[in-house]
C-alpha cells in the first residue's frame, strides 16, 4: 500500500511533462521553415474559424433583430389594430344605434373606417403570416415551434376574415330595422355584438398574444448573451495567439515587428470592437424598444380595448335593457379590470392622466345609470351620446390612443436602430477574417522566403 502510494505520483507526474517535452522537442527538432509553415497553417485555421464564428454570431443577432422589425413588429401592430378597430366598431355601432334612425354621420363614418381598417389589417397580417411561414421553411430556423404558431395565427385570421362580413351584415340589418322603428333591430345588434365579442375579438386577441410572445422571443434572441460571449472570448484568444506568434517570430528572426501579423492583429481588433459595439448598441436599442415601446403599447392597447368594451356596454344597456343587467354587469367588470387600482390595466400604463379621466367617466356613467333607473331614459341617452359620459369617455379614449401612438413610434424607431446596428456586420466579420489570413500569409511567407 505505502509503496504504491509512493510510486503512483512518481509515475503519473512526469507524464504531461514528457508529453509536452515530446511535442516541444518535435517542434524544436523541426527546421525553422517547417515550424513557420506549421504556424502559418495554424494561424490561417484560427483566423478562418474566428471569422466563421463572428459571422455566425453577427448573422444570428442580425436576423433576430430583422425579425423583430420585419415580421413580428408589423404583425403584432396589425393584431393590435384589428383588436382595437373591432372593439371601436362594437362601441360605435352601439352608440350610433342609440341615436335611432338619425344616426350621426360621423359615427357612421367612424364605424366604416373601423371595419375598413380591420379588413385591411387582416389582409396585411395574412400576407405576413404567409411570408413568415415561407421563411420558417428555410433551413437554419428551428422547425418545431414556429410553423405551428404560424398556422394557429393563420386559423385565427381565417376566422376573422370569415366572420367579419357576418358581423357587418348583422349590424346592417340592425340599422335597417332600427330605422323602421322596430325593436327587432336591437336583437340584431345584440347578436352582432355577441358574435364580435365571442368569436372575432378572441381570435384577434389570440393573434395579438402569440405575436407579442413571438416578438419577445425574437427580441430575446437578438439581445441574448451566450453566442456573443463565446465570440468575444474566442476573439481575445486569437489576439493572444497572434501576440505570442509575433513574439516567437521576433525571437527567431531578430525582427521587432512583423507587419503581416500586425495587420492581422489590427484587423482582428477592429472586427472584435465592431462586433462588440454593434451588439451593445443593438441590444440597447432593442431593449429600449421593448421597455419603452412594445410593453407600454401593449398596456395602453389592453386598457383601450377594455374601455371600448365598457363604452359599448354603456350603450347596449340603454338600447336593450332585458332586465338582467348583463351589460351593466359587464361594464362594472371592465371597470374593475381597467382600474386604476393596483394591478389594473390603467396602472400598467402608468398614465395618471388616463386614470383621472377614467374616474371622471365612471362618475358620469354612474350618473347616467341613475338617470336611466329613474326612468329618465332620454337624459341618459343624451349623456351617452353627447353629454358628460360621452365627453369623459372621449377624453380617456384619446389619451389611451395617444399612448399607443407615441410608444408605437418609440418602438419602431428603436427597433429599426437595433436592426441597423447589425447591418453589414456578418460580411464585415468575413472580410476581416480574410484580411487576417492575408496578413498572416504575407507576414510569414516573407520570413519563409528568407530560408530559400
Amino acid at each position: 500500500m505505502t509503496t504504491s502510494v509512493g510510486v503512483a505520483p512518481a509515475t503519473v507526474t512526469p507524464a504531461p511533462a514528457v508529453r509536452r517535452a515530446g511535442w516541444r522537442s518535435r517542434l524544436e527538432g523541426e527546421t525553422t521553415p517547417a515550424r513557420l509553415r506549421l504556424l502559418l497553417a495554424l494561424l490561417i485555421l484560427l483566423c478562418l474559424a474566428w471569422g466563421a464564428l463572428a459571422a455566425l454570431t453577427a448573422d444570428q443577432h442580425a436576423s433576430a433583430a430583422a425579425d423583430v422589425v420585419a415580421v413580428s413588429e408589423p404583425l403584432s401592430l396589425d393584431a393590435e389594430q384589428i383588436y382595437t378597430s373591432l372593439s371601436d366598431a362594437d362601441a360605435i355601432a352601439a352608440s350610433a344605434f342609440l341615436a335611432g334612425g338619425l344616426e350621426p354621420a360621423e359615427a357612421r363614418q367612424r364605424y366604416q373606417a373601423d371595419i375598413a381598417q380591420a379588413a385591411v389589417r387582416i389582409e396585411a397580417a395574412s400576407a405576413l403570416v404567409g411570408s413568415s411561414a415561407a421563411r420558417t421553411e428555410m433551413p437554419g430556423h428551428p422547425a418545431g415551434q414556429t410553423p405551428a404558431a404560424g398556422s394557429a395565427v393563420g386559423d385565427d385570421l381565417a376566422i376573422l376574415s370569415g366572420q367579419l362580413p357576418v358581423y357587418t351584415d348583422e349590424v346592417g340589418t340592425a340599422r335597417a330595422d332600427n330605422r323602421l322603428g322596430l325593436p327587432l333591430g336591437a336583437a340584431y345588434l345584440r347578436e352582432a355584438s355577441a358574435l364580435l365579442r365571442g368569436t372575432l375579438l378572441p381570435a384577434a386577441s389570440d393573434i395579438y398574444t402569440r405575436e407579442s410572445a413571438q416578438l419577445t422571443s425574437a427580441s430575446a434572441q437578438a439581445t441574448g448573451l451566450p453566442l456573443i460571449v463565446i465570440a468575444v472570448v474566442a476573439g481575445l484568444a486569437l489576439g493572444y495567439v497572434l501576440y505570442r506568434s509575433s513574439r516567437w517570430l521576433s525571437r527567431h528572426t531578430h525582427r521587432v515587428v512583423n507587419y503581416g501579423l500586425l495587420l492581422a492583429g489590427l484587423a482582428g481588433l477592429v472586427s472584435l470592437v465592431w462586433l462588440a459595439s454593434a451588439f451593445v448598441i443593438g441590444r440597447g436599442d432593442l431593449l429600449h424598444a421593448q421597455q419603452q415601446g412594445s410593453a407600454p403599447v401593449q398596456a395602453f392597447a389592453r386598457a383601450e380595448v377594455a374601455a371600448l368594451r365598457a363604452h359599448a356596454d354603456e350603450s347596449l344597456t340603454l338600447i336593450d335593457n332585458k332586465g338582467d343587467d348583463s351589460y351593466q354587469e359587464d361594464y362594472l367588470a371592465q371597470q374593475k379590470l381597467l382600474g386604476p387600482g393596483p394591478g389594473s390595466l390603467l396602472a400598467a400604463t402608468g398614465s395618471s392622466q388616463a386614470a383621472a379621466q377614467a374616474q371622471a367617466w365612471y362618475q358620469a356613467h354612474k350618473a347616467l345609470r341613475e338617470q336611466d333607473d329613474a326612468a329618465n331614459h332620454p337624459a341618459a341617452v343624451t349623456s351617452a351620446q353627447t353629454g358628460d359620459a360621452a365627453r369623459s369617455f372621449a377624453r380617456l379614449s384619446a389619451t389611451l390612443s395617444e399612448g399607443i401612438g407615441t410608444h408605437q413610434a418609440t418602438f419602431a424607431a428603436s427597433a429599426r436602430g437595433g436592426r441597423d446596428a447589425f447591418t453589414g456586420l456578418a460580411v464585415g466579420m468575413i472580410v476581416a477574417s480574410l484580411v487576417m489570413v492575408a496578413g498572416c500569409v504575407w507576414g510569414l511567407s516573407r520570413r519563409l522566403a528568407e530560408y530559400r
Partner: protein
Amino acid sequence: MNARPRPGVPWRRALLVVLAASGLALGAAAAAAAPGQPPVVHAARAVSAPAAGTCDPTASSLRPYGPPQVTSGSFMAKVRARGYLIAGVDQNTYRFGFLNPLSGQIEGFDIDMIRAVANAIFGNSDPKTVHFKAISDAQRIPSVTSGAVDIVAHTMTITCDRLKDIDFSSVYFNAAQKVLVLKNSSATSLDDLHGQKVCATSGSDSLDRIKAHQAVPVAVAGWTDCLVLLQQGSVTAISTDDSILDGLAAQDPWTKIIGKPLTSEPYGLAISKQHPEFVRFVNAVLQQLRTDGQWKASYAHWLGNPVPPPPQAKYAG
C-alpha cells in the same frame, strides 16, 4: 306567456314536471284516440290545472269598491307621496312593451294600462309619474315580492301557481299560444313541425309545449332573438302567445301566424300580496278602461282592428 316556477321551489317544479308529463301522456292518448283533433288543448289544461278544484285563474282577483279612490294611509297614498309609480315592464315585446327607437320611450298596450293606473293615482297624465324598470321574464315575480316595483305589466299570464306568491288584477287581455312561420311554409299547426327547430324564450312554458309536440325547442333570451333566428334560417318556427307573435309578424311581413289556439293565456297586472287595496284600486281602474272606451282605443292603436270586447272581470271575493 307562462314562465316556469322560480328556482328555489324545487318541489313545485317537480310537481309541474309530473303534471306536464301526465298532460303529455294525456295529449298523446288524445292524439291516438282522435287524430286531427288538437291534443294540445288537453295537455295545456292538464298543465294549468294543478289546483283545479279550488283555483280559477281568471276569477281570482279582488273586487273593487266602486271607482278608484286614493284613500289616506293606503299604498296608493304612499305612491302619491313618493311622486311616481314604479312599474316593471318588458322592453322587447313590440306593441305590448317596447322601447320605441323613434321616441326613446317605452310604449305599448301594457304600458297604457300602467299609465292609466298612474293617472288614477296622481290625477294627471304627466309622464314623469311612472318610473319604468325593464325586467326579464324570470324577474317578474321576485320584483313584485321584494317590493322593487309596485306593479308588473309584462304579458304575464295569471296562473294558479303564481297566485301562491303574488296577486293579479282582473284579466285585461286574453292571449293564446300559436305558431309563427315564414310565409312560404306549408305547416298549418305545431304538429306539422315534428322534429324541426322551434324557438321560444328560456323560462317560458311555450318551450315545454314545443317539446310536447315533438318539435325541437330552441331557447333564446328574448322574443326578438327568436325572430332573428327565424330570419337567419336557424329555426323553422316560433311558438308563443299570439299577442307576442303579432308583434313579431308586424316586424316581418314575410311571416304568418298559423294554427288554432293551443292554450288560453289570461294576462293580469301583478301586484304584491301586501297591498290588497292596490289590487282593488287597479281593478277599479281597469273597469273604467273597459267601460269608457279607453281599453278599445288602446287596443285599436296597438293591435289594430277589429277590436274584440274587453275581457269581462270576474272576482274571487
